């Protein structure tokens, strides 16, 4: 049973921001919004590390649970998608998101946040897969083409891994064994194993 996940190898990410750039380009994300970001800790100090983050497509996704208009929904591989036609811009998903993923258009009037936008795991939206309408609203549907998110496939150091969670974890573990160190799966406890003890 495939359950897709994102895993960023914090020892490999070089903060080139290619993932963020490729994502914006591939999905034609509107001005002022970003689906994938790179966050740096201890910048300029020993132990500095950068990690790419976007929507993690959580297990028991809190955004889906709080959405008052059922805009957000999950698919059987774990991808969390949204329906731009029903979104009312209330911001609930943003308050509930553990990773700051939902984005809103900047040009807003009287506090209206406009239609939410977020990472789709390159899986489009409710429109017909591969259609022009789907592309204009959500960007490329690479999953429907049998491919994986571009941010991971474009990663030059293969720090960012996306796809079947078990496979991704296995690749990461083999890597850690080969090089002898690794700081673990950042954000996974919060995103994928909500019931486990923190």
């Amino acid at each position: 049973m495939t359950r897709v996940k994102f895993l960023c190898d914090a020892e490999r990410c070089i903060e080139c921001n290619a993932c963020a750039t490729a994502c914006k380009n591939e999905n034609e994300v509107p001005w002022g919004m970003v689906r994938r970001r790179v966050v740096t800790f201890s910048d300029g100090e020993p132990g500095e590390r950068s990690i790419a983050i976007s929507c993690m497509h959580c297990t028991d996704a809190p955004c889906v649970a709080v959405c008052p208009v059922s805009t957000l929904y999950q698919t059987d591989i774990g991808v969390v998608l949204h329906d731009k036609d029903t979104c009312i811009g209330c911001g609930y998903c943003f308050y509930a998101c553990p990773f700051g993923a939902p984005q809103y258009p900047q040009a807003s009037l009287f506090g209206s946040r406009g239609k939410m936008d977020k990472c789709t795991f390159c899986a489009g939206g409710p429109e017909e897969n591969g259609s022009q309408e789907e592309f204009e609203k959500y960007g490329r549907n690479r999953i429907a083409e049998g491919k994986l998110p571009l941010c991971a496939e474009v990663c030059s150091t293969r720090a960012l891994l996306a796809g079947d969670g078990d496979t991704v974890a296995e690749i990461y573990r083999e890597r850690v064994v080969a090089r002898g160190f690794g700081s673990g799966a950042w954000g996974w406890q919060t995103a994928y194993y909500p019931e486990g003890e923190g």
Partner: protein
Amino acid sequence: MSEEVQIRGRDFVGYRIGGAIAALLLFVALAWQTVELFDGDNITSPEVRWSASVVNGREVTPGSDADSGLLAQQILAARTRMQEDRQNTGPAPGEPAPRLALGEGEYLTESPMPFDPALTRSWAIADGETAAMLRPRERLVGISSLPYVGAALFERPDGRDWRLGMADFVTHLGAWAMLGFAFLLALILAIRGRVPIAKGRSQEKIRRFGFIERANHWMTATSFVGLAITGVAIGYGDTLIRPFGERTLGTIGWWATWSHSIFLPSFTLGLVVMAVYWLYRNLPSKLDWTWLRRGGGFFSDDPDNPPARKFNAGQKLIFWSAILGGLVMIVTGLLLMFPFYVLGIEGTSWAMLTHAVVAALLIAIFLGHIYIGTVGMQGAFWAMWDGLVDKNWAEEHHELWVEELEAKRGGRA
């Protein structure tokens, strides 16, 4: 009981039957809401499944949905393998694509699937090797070179707590508070009947509220009801409107969101004017304590109610709920309309929770206000409608106020 009592609460048979019917309906709603609390569907479950119908020109056996679904997952898992380090994995340029891959112009399809939390529960279990990889959950904010608000945030586990607070706690308990209080009021009407003007109507009327007071009251009331209805449409649309279709829910939700802020200016102005006109007479006094201790004389038909000036303790509580509650709602509402101007994400999410909790309480309180001002008490409604109340009503509920008025009139004469 004194012989003065001409009208009794239990004589309002029509009102009592109406109250009984309302109580019955509200009891059903309350029971249903209780079931909702414990039916265990407060877990996100997948709604859509992927499947492969054509792979490299070959049609997948029709009628075997499960197999085509499995195939879609295998295609994605095979692709995941390609992210292994380059020395371990192909294909090199020019090599054929992996066997399990879609051809040009072939797409996986999506179809709806039934509610089944078992899948979510299975995802939430980490095997031993994965469990060893997990880092403890912690709040992490770094820096980011990307110029976006909130770009430096990596992880905030409290998001899940917010979901618990909003979707489970506030929504369900809010519904409980509103439905429960409405049920109680309907039950009171059914059993006790209206609070009567015990001595019957007199021929004399007394002016209680002036034109500006009444106009302002109804402006504020209309705004409040508008805010409440649009707010409930947003907060409970998933339960109340979703059965009519997700498109309908989205459209109504969109209108509700916009109208919700449109009622803000009139509501704010109304509260300010109310404060100017009524604040002084609503300051607490010793009489209020006596009034509250006797429950306002609510349950007896005896005309001898605890004495009150223009506003009794009950009315004062309503006034202060409107002023203080309204203030909280306006402040949190404004903060929510302009996120990141004053508060960051944590502050805004607290503002949202506060807004929702106080909203549910205010709606419950003002259900009580609407009740006592209309069906709950004979003669009360006219105070705010044409501004004139029956003299007997005034003497029964506000005897000190009537004395004040008479003293003034006597002084002038």
